[in-house]
């Protein structure tokens, strides 16, 4: 059963991984960090990535239907639907990728995994699949 650090270290074993963190997108707090930070400061990059994640999780263009279900107090619908409906965000730079993966939890939370990947060595498709598995294992064991 992995904890936060084990999960981040596992992410760092992916080819091309430069840095990884677990961030709360409501507060912008980095709950755990491993490796290098984009921009050199884990706390600052966590706060900035959190802004982006929050937008993706809240805007109806990206998360359709979620608002309506919550508004109606549809408990059954809410339980069946992962929160938020967005799975991950991918940002491509000229030399690196950022992969933001939302962590679905059975308790109330707003966290995502942030993986920073060198473009030359990284495999985006593999990283996306593996990060999704890690996000699941982080809370399910």
């Amino acid at each position: 059963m992995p904890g936060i650090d084990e999960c981040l270290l596992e992410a760092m074993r992916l080819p091309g991984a430069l840095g990884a963190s677990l961030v709360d997108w409501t507060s912008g707090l980095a709950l755990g960090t491993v490796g290098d930070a984009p921009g050199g400061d884990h706390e600052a990059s966590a706060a900035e990535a959190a802004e982006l994640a929050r937008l993706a999780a809240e805007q109806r263009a990206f998360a359709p239907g979620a608002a309506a279900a919550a508004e109606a107090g549809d408990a059954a619908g809410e339980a069946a639907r992962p929160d938020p409906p967005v799975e991950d965000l991918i940002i491509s730079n000229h030399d690196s990728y950022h992969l933001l993966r939302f962590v679905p939890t059975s308790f109330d939370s707003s966290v995502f995994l942030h993986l920073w990947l060198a473009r030359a060595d990284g495999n985006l498709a593999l990283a996306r699949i593996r990060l999704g598995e890690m996000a699941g294992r982080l809370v399910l064991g």
Partner: protein
Amino acid sequence: MTVVRTTPPPRLPVRNKTTADEPAATGLSPMLNRLAAERATGVLVRECGTLYLADGHVVHAESPLAPGLDVLLTTHGTLDAESWRQAADRADERHGAGRLLLDARRVTQGTLELCHLGALYDAAYFALAPSSAPGRFRYGTGHWLGPVRPVPVAAVERETLRRRELLHRIWPDPWADGAPLLRTALGAAPAVPPRQAAVLTLVDGARSAPDIARELGRPTFHTLVDVRRLTAAGLVAPHAPHAPHAPPSTPDPLPVVTDPDITLLKRLRDALEAL
């Protein structure tokens, strides 16, 4: 040639690394910094909450304003209340409740760490709020939860300051933070994001933000972020007699003039008429 001079834009704020790394610079609690420096173990009781220290690190925090770890874990059925109660009862100095829950496979390490950090930073935010009374420290007593994920004092202080600033940026008036909340009567309310909608449905004129947080099994700070957003959007308002009423101010009595300067008044009148 006319040169148009404009005022230069204000410099963007840049966090000063050297001061940010010195916990003493934050000035949140000088006592807490001293305890961190001497790697103290014990309990710091402040006006709005309690911090538990072990070897100068924060291992747990509690506040009457923040839902406890048990609430975060049990509200949505991640852990059943009975398992929590059993672990709390059986916990001793060698086996903390956290360890017992993990060993019995009631929760996963990741779940426990996430909820624990959520509860810790949330309660610490209120515990470190400005207070009028000084804090008290008792050496040597740990917390029955046991160590889950200790956090340096400096990190807790930095995060608390950052959270204050975050709330202030969203909506600068803290009046709605503790008061019962009321939905403002708007014809057609604009759609709000799901997590804000969950808060909004519990706004009923009686519950305050900490009450809503407890009901949702969500940290109070996270609820405050949504409450301030909803307040800024004009959808929610504090349901309370606004602000402590200032005593009706008595109008300043008119100055008693015994010797009006008649000559000056006449000259003034003459000058005005001559215009």
